[in-house]
């Protein structure tokens, strides 16, 4: 499986995307025209939290060891949000389990990833109503939908596995986006994703499993 990790992000809007896992997942989780989430807010937050951890793993800024998250060096992180998350992990002692980081990051992940995408030109902030906070609308529907198309191409069985694509697909399925992906991916892709997730680096596998558990727990505890 080729490990493309997190490519250095481009500052301008484009069909190729930013190359960051959380950005890809955010766009998949929201409608490409209205910007409305396809999931409950807490589920989106947990999925994006998992994606932020995955970004750190891809850049070797963090490692998962025995279910706990440890910072591996702030210099590896390559954007302010990743640096912030890596810094938060670095100061926690003893290291916390993945589930704690998911719960912690999920509180603000949606807004922070949206802000990052806005900086890169993919989203436009729309003023909110008094009873509702600000929301973001895709600047270009084609670019907003492109991550789904990239996933479809990356998960093609005839192509070498893309570690980031599989991770994004796994996180998407974990937080409840399986039916949405099922609309655009070939039949049976769900099982293909499960199989590919099983081949991932153990740390990434742990993050995806923990995300799934967190979303399930929130649903069963009436928090979603």
């Amino acid at each position, binding site marked *: 499986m080729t490990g493309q990790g997190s490519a250095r992000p481009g500052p301008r809007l484009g069909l190729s995307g930013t190359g960051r896992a959380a950005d890809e997942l955010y766009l998949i989780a929201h409608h490409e025209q209205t910007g409305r989430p*396809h*999931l*409950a807010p807490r*589920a989106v937050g947990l999925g994006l939290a998992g994606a932020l951890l995955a970004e750190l793993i891809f850049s070797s800024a963090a490692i998962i060891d025995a*279910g706990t998250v440890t910072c591996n060096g702030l210099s590896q992180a390559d*954007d*302010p*949000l990743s*640096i*912030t998350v890596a*810094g*938060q992990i*670095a*100061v*926690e*002692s003893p290291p*916390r389990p993945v*589930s*704690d*980081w998911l*719960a*912690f990051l999920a*509180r603000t992940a949606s807004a*922070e990833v949206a*802000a*990052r995408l*806005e*900086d890169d030109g993919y989203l436009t902030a729309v003023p909110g109503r008094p009873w509702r906070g600000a929301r973001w609308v895709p600047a270009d529907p084609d670019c907003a939908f492109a991550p789904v198309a990239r996933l479809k191409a990356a998960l093609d069985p005839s192509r070498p596995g893309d570690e980031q694509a599989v991770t994004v697909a796994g996180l998407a399925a*974990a937080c*409840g986006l*399986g*039916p*949405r992906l099922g609309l655009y991916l070939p039949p049976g892709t769900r099982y293909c994703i499960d199989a590919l997730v099983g081949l991932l680096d153990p740390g990434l596998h*742990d993050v995806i*499993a*923990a995300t*799934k*558990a*967190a*979303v*399930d*727990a929130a*649903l*069963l*505890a*009436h*928090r*979603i």
Partner: protein
Amino acid sequence: MSRTRTAHPKPGAVSRALAADRLGVPAVLFFVMAGVAPLTVAAGVIPTAYATTGLTAIPAAFIVIAVILAIFSAGYVAMARAIRNAGAFYAFIAAGLGRVTGVAAALVALFAYSLLQVGLYGAFGPNAASEAAAHLGVHGPWWAFALGAWAVVAVLGLARVEVTGRVLGVLLCAELAVIIAQTVGGLARPAGGHLSFATLSPAALGSAGLGTFGVLAVVAVLGFVGFEQAPVLGEEAKNPRRTVPAATYTALALIAVVYATASWAMAAHAGTGHVAAAAAAQGPGLMFGLSGSALLSQAAQWLFLTSLFAAALSFHNSVWRYTYALGRENVLPTAFGRTSASNIPKAASLAQSATGLAVITGYALTHQDPMTRLFFWLGTSGGLGIMILLAVTSAAVAVFFARNARGESIWARLIAPALAAILLAGIVVLAVEHYAVLLGVPPGSPAAWVLPASYAAIAAVGLCWGLILKVRRPQIYAAIGLGAHAATAAPAITGRRP
């Protein structure tokens, strides 16, 4: 330029942030009480129980059952500290008595909660029809209004639009206020000018024979259904060791006081010897007319409808969550464990909706009385199922802690659960033996054995299915009772019985 924050992180920030997101005792207590639907019990269950059973010791039953449930709760909350699973009953039973028994318990729980949910339409229908006729001039059969409520619940269940916390809170407070006001009014106007305490006396529980205590206990347990939900929020609680027990015991006390005094007020106002006849004649009106205030009576009638609807929606959501949890573990077909858009387990929600539609249609086509035969019969049968689960859970708690005390007191891990198991099992036996009295039918009537026997049948199916899973699908069998944590490598508990 990025606006993402670059604040210097401080140690302990994660702990503080996680703590802020957790639920305290008031939030958990509110969650429990909102599911209890007090006016549904006070105006629906209690008058119907008086009328159907003819027994008058209902107030005493609430007090005695509250004490028994408090004993049960000692072991229950101790178990909740050891097991992180929102599907408390079956997870605890699986951990204590084995996964095969756990599967049987899961199906029994699903059946019991489903009966409780569907039965509510039997009260909503006729009362909504009455209100519509009186205030809107709209006349229609009870089942039309029941189907209307069913349709709204079905749609809201698919949209995952739970009645918002604030709306539920307002309704809950209003219901409690109305019940208290009516109770005070009723006690202030006792029959014959003399306030009788006879129905509060535990001695009254066996006045018509020991078996009647079992009947009264089922009615009382029905009033407490919902108190067992506190561990559902255990993982979300600020301090699970304190929050869950505090919310559980507070809920028990609150429920006991409200229902015991309300039912006492009804008996005192109508007269102990006349309350059954009065309840048969007035139905929920027995509660609505306690204070003699027309305004309060009308408010109570409207809140009764909102209470029934909120309870139907709340139980619908609880049933599909249970179904989803079992589908996730593959105890039920996997389709039930999948979510569609917006994290809705569509199949699980539709299954419960289909059940409700079938039951309402069946009762409508057979022209059966909805208040007695749908609301009370299915409701009390659901209560019997809950009581069975309470008894088996108590036994499971004792067995679980016998393997590993986990630092729990001997009261919590052995004495309380053993005592609760014996008392609850005894009550179940008494109730089943006198089920005809509970349903208000002649001894030997088919309903008197079909309804309780259905639990035996479902448990048998569950045991068989559990054995099949153990032999033919060991991976699925191994994950039974793990709940959401089945997705991770670490189990929810240690020291599980294979």
